[in-house]
């Protein structure tokens, strides 16, 4: 969805200038040097795959206004077909380079994106969302039934180190996997960015904003959505292919609702109205998934809470948070905001810490035995009594206090922003 820009800035698709691209290049090339353990490289590879997946999703959502709950279908089918291609080429001795196998996934994503897209894009809005959900469930169910192709619950596996490689013995080491993913990711980022600059990319935006008016300027919204859906399927399929080759296995989850929900959350949290939003969102969510799951069982709950918080309070996503501060930095008004932010820091941190504390305490509750099994647990190195009603009461009290203090601090933040906005308007020579 498009962001409501509070200021009359020029570009609304990208952040200004070349620096985001430079930053991206630096990160792509530099991160594997800083984080060079196999585990880190795996995470970075996962992020790269999810970036492509998320960008493909945002072609539909943020750029064309199509909310899909079943986008994982194209990702998953791309993954499955790629795996079949890998195994098939290896078995038949066909010298197709493994590094280019994601193209198979892409072709499959394109084909299904076209066929299913033509059907489903006849409707838009909520009806499209629900239909995409139904199709997603249908395909996931069929994947279980068609065991021969999909390998049943266990999925399909393959060895990407087998077969022909054109770039040395690619995919044998984690660092090579990383570069494989990074290369495809870079290509796809550029390709999707290019798409946003084409006539179709612009008309898709118009159809998003006002499908009726788009008709009156000569465009059939169904045809526009259908084509975008096809292209989105292409990139989702490539992402799926990358995933298959990176993980060495594809399971039915790849097609399922949970995966579709994840990419939606990535895009929304990152920011659907800005090109780099999905990139940021993919990084954040992948990181949270991998990191948090090491520390707590509650990681899915945290991601859910984060998502709901973004929906309620940061509708433009994390990328938009950056974007709205750019004119502030440019007009050197940051100094006015910092004191208010500092004031907000304490209640906000207390709130988050307390919430985490309560969630972690709750997760000591063992549902099967319906009691708190452990008497106490350790939170940040402090032993806490879980049974004690006093602990809970105190935690709730602190939460309430944090909310109260936070609301007060929020007023200061709002006032600071009004101040800043007025100064920026003056600096631009606009009427107040």
């Amino acid at each position: 969805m498009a962001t409501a820009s509070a200021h009359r800035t020029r570009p609304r698709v990208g952040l200004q200038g070349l620096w985001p691209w430079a930053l991206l290049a630096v990160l792509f090339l530099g991160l594997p040097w800083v984080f060079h353990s196999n585990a880190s490289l795996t995470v970075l590879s996962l992020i790269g795959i999810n970036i492509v997946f998320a960008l493909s999703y945002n072609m539909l959502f943020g750029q064309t206004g199509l909310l899909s709950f079943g986008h994982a279908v194209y990702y998953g089918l791309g993954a499955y077909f790629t795996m079949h291609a890998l195994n098939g080429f290896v078995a038949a001795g066909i010298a197709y380079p493994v590094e280019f196998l994601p193209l198979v996934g892409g072709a499959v994503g394109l084909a299904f994106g076209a066929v299913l897209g033509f059907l489903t894009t006849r409707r838009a809005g909520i009806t499209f969302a629900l239909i995409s959900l139904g199709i997603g469930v249908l395909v996931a169910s069929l994947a279980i039934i068609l065991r021969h192709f999909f390998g049943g619950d266990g999925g399909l596996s393959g060895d990407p180190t087998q077969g022909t490689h054109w770039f040395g013995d690619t995919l044998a080491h984690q660092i090579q996997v990383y570069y494989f993913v990074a290369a495809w990711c870079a290509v796809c980022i550029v390709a999707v960015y290019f798409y946003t600059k084409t006539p179709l990319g612009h008309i898709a935006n118009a159809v998003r904003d006002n499908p009726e008016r788009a008709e009156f300027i000569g465009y059939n919204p169904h045809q526009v959505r259908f084509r975008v859906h096809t292209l989105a399927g292409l990139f989702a399929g490539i992402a799926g292919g990358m995933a298959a080759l990176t993980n060495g296995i594809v399971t039915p989850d790849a097609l399922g609702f949970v995966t579709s929900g994840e990419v939606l959350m990535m895009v929304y949290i990152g920011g659907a109205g800005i090109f780099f939003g999905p990139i940021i969102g993919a990084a954040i969510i992948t990181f949270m998934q991998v990191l948090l799951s090491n520390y707590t069982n509650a990681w899915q709950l945290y991601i859910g809470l984060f998502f709901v918080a973004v929906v309620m309070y940061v509708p433009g996503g994390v990328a938009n948070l950056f974007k709205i501060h750019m004119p502030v930095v440019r007009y050197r008004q940051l100094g006015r905001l910092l004191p208010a932010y500092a004031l907000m820091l304490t209640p906000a941190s207390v709130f988050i810490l307390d919430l985490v504390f309560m969630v972690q305490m709750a997760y000591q509750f063992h549902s099967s035995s319906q009691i708190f099994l452990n008497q106490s647990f350790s939170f940040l190195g402090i032993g806490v009594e879980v049974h004690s009603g006093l602990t809970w009461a105190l935690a709730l009290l602190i939460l309430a206090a944090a909310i109260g203090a936070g609301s007060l601090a929020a007023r200061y933040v709002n006032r600071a922003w009004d101040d800043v906005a007025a100064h920026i308007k003056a600096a631009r020579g606009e009427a107040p």
Partner: protein
Amino acid sequence: MTTTALQLQDVRKHFGPAEIIRGVDLEVSSGERHAIIGPNGAGKSTLFNLISGRFHPSAGHIRLKGDEITRRSAFAIARSGLSRSFQVTNIFHNLTVFENLRCAVLWSLGYRYNFWRRIKALKDVQARATELLELTHLGPRRDLLAGELPYADQRALEIGITIAGGADVILLDEPTAGMSVEETERAVALIQRVSEGKTLLMVEHDMEVVFGLADRISVLVYGQIIATDTPEAIRSNSEVQKAYLGETPDQEPRHAGSQ
């Protein structure tokens, strides 16, 4: 030799039991500036919706330059050279002014669903959009988001989008609605500029605008046209006065009907 640009033949439209358009016959000649006036609820916007394909007539025929467009979809009609503006501004609010105009020229310049060329590289698109920008005097607002424009600029953009595709038959639905005197003057000047050599059909409540611009006027009352004639004839038509203007000939209200 004048050709008929737009013809309505016994057009009817009912919504459920209510018949809103009850048999309208109208012929607009090529190059003519034709205004439709009438009290609120007469069905003027409905008539526009029927002509432009937003919905279809229950009966009757609509012909554009001889072509039957009665059942055609809105985008097909737009492609056939008929374009309309909206009473309630209907622009692409999250695109800039320039992008709005650029999108509006794409189809007419032949760039269907192109996704392999950068739009900035399409010289003819850029040129035409810039031309429209100048025509509508929106140059200074080029890179502002359309949704944040002041009202009068949005109306100008509305007209700009309408004429962008080079349609020969232009329908303007209350183009000066809600405007001050100066804004109305500017809008009228714009309308005169853009309708040069085209066929113009417009709905208007502002009688000064109507009598100033129109070659002929049709009066729509309760879904039927009760008179079609030159402005002077309409002004002195007693039936029209009775049904609509409600004033004697020497007391003409500036605005008839409500805004």
